[in-house]
C-alpha cells in the first residue's frame, strides 16, 4: 500500500522529468519562453506581433503557478530588435525557481508556462547545499564535530564519508515518515522526536551492518558513527525538507549536497590545520582559537559563492 501511495506521489515528477526542458511548444503563437534577468521573462512569438498590443503591459497577466490569485505586476513590455521577442519587466524580482504562468490577453486568452528545467532545479538544490548555502560555512551548523575531527586529513575523509552515508539514509527515512505518517495523522509536533529517533536508528543500523559486512571499514570509520548523532546538520536537513515540503528527488539532492558540503568543509579545514601544526602561531591562539579564525576566513571565501546561480 505504501509503495503504491509513494508511486502515486512520485509519478507526476517522473513524467515531468520525461517532458523536460523547454520543449513546451504546444502553445499556438508563442514559440518560446525563458527567464531573462532576475525580473524579466522573455517571450518569443511565432509570427511578429503587432507593436502596440505587444508592448502594452496591460495585455499580459502573470502569476506563479502555485498562487493563481496573486497577479505579478508587469511594469513594462518591450519588443526586441528581431520584432518577435517581447521582454516583460516586473516591478519586483521573480522567484525563478518556481514555475510561472503568462497569459496573453491580446492573443485570444492564450497562456504559457514558464519554468526552468526540472533537472536544472534539482541540480540547483545540490549546488546550493554544497557551496552557496554550505551548512558549515554559511549556516554555521555542525561546528562541534567540524572542529573536533578536522585535525588530520584521514580523519576528515573518514568522518565526511560516514556522515554522507548516514545523512542520505536518514534523510530518505525522515522524508518517508514525514510524508506518510506525520502529515496524514497530524503529528507535526512530534517532528523533533521522530527525526532524531530516526537518526539514532540509522546510526545504529549502519554500525551493525558495517561491523558484519566490512570489518576493515568499520575499524576505520566506526569511531565517527557516535559523533554523527551530535551533529546539528543531521537534524537540520530533515527539518528543512519538512518545512519546504520537498519531494523525494529534492530530498535526496539536499541530503547529498549537505553531506558533500560537510565533507568538503572538513577536508579543506583539515588541509589547512595540518599546515598550521608547523606554523609559528602565538601560544594563546594554538589549537582551537586559530582554527576558528581560519574557519572565519573560509566563511568569507564561501560568501563569494552567494551570487552564484546556475540554470
Amino acid at each position, binding site marked *: 500500500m505504501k509503495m503504491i501511495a509513494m508511486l502515486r506521489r512520485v509519478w507526476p515528477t517522473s513524467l515531468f522529468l520525461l517532458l523536460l526542458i523547454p520543449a513546451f511548444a504546444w502553445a499556438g503563437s508563442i514559440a518560446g519562453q525563458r527567464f531573462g534577468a532576475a525580473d524579466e521573462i522573455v517571450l518569443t512569438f511565432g509570427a511578429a506581433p503587432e507593436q502596440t498590443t505587444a508592448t502594452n503591459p496591460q495585455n499580459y497577466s502573470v502569476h506563479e503557478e502555485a498562487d493563481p490569485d496573486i497577479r505579478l505586476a508587469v511594469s513594462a513590455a518591450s519588443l526586441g530588435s528581431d520584432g518577435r521577442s517581447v521582454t516583460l519587466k516586473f516591478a519586483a524580482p521573480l522567484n525563478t525557481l518556481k514555475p510561472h504562468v503568462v497569459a496573453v490577453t491580446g492573443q485570444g486568452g492564450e497562456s504559457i508556462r514558464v519554468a526552468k528545467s526540472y533537472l536544472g532545479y534539482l541540480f540547483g538544490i545540490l549546488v546550493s547545499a554544497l557551496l552557496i548555502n554550505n551548512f558549515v560555512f554559511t549556516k554555521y551548523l555542525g561546528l562541534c564535530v567540524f572542529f573536533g575531527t578536522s585535525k588530520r586529513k584521514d580523519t576528515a575523509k573518514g568522518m565526511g564519508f560516514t556522515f554522507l552515508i548516514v545523512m542520505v539514509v536518514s534523510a530518505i527515512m525522515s522524508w518517508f515518515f514525514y510524508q506518510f505518517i506525520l502529515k496524514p495523522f497530524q503529528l507535526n509536533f512530534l517532528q523533533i522526536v521522530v527525526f532524531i529517533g530516526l537518526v539514532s536508528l540509522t546510526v545504529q543500523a549502519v554500525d551493525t551492518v558495517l561491523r558484519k559486512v566490512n570489518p576493515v571499514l568499520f575499524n576505520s570509520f566506526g569511531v565517527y558513527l557516535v559523533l554523527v548523532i551530535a551533529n546539528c546538520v543531521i537534524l537540520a536537513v530533515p527539518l528543512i525538507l519538512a518545512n519546504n515540503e520537498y519531494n523525494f528527488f529534492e530530498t535526496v539532492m539536499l541530503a547529498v549536497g549537505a553531506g558533500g558540503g560537510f565533507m568538503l568543509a572538513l577536508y579543506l579545514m583539515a588541509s589547512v590545520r595540518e599546515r598550521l601544526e608547523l606554523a609559528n602561531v602565538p601560544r*594563546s591562539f594554538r589549537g582551537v582559537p586559530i582554527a576558528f579564525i581560519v574557519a572565519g576566513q573560509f566563511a568569507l571565501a564561501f560568501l563569494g559563492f552567494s551570487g552564484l546561480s546556475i540554470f
Partner: protein
Amino acid sequence: MATDKSSMQLITNGILNENPIFRLVLSMCPAVGISTTVMNGFMLGIAVLFVQVFSSLTIAIFKNVIHPRIRIPTYTLTIATWVTVIDMVLAAYLPEAYAKMGIFIKLIVAFAIITMRLEMFASKETVSASFFDGIGMGLGFMAGMMAIGFVRELLGLGSLLGYDLLGFKPMLFFVLPLAGFFCVGLMMGFFNYIETRYKSAKRAQA
C-alpha cells in the same frame, strides 16, 4: 557514587572551570550562528538551561532502569522531548524571539553539551547533584553566549540590549554572521592569554 562537591561548587564549575563554550568547546553552532546580540544569547541560554536541567533530572531519576546498551538513544529521546516542550512554549508565548532563533531552538537536541553531561554526570550522580550540575552548565552556556553577544553587539552596533550606547557603529563587520568565527576565535585566544599570565604569576609567587 556521589560527588563530594557542594551545590555551589557544581554551579560555578559549570560557569567557570568547565564552561561549555570556552573550555569544553562544545555547542559552537549557536555561539557562532546567532550570538549577534546579548538578548539572543540570553534567550537561547534560557532554552538550553531549561532543557539541560530537566533532561539531567529525568536521566538521574531513571538511571537505574535504563539499559546501558541503549543509553545513548534514550538520552537523545529524553532531550528531544524537552526540546519539543520548550519549542512549543516559546512559539506560543514569545513568537518574535522564536522567529529570531529560527531553527536553532529545534537543534538544541543535537547540542553535544547536553548529551555529554547526561553521559558523564547525570547517569552516575544523585538527583540533586545532577540538578545543580544542569543549572551550572546551562548558566555557563548562557554566560558564554551573552559574552560573545556583548562583544559583537558593542563592536558591531554600538549598543547593548538594544540601547544605543556609543552613538556610532565602531566595526559593523562584527554583526555579519560569519564574524562569529573571528569573534569566538579572538575571545578564546584572549582567555587563554589571561590564563597563562595568571598561572605564571602564581608560579612566580610560589
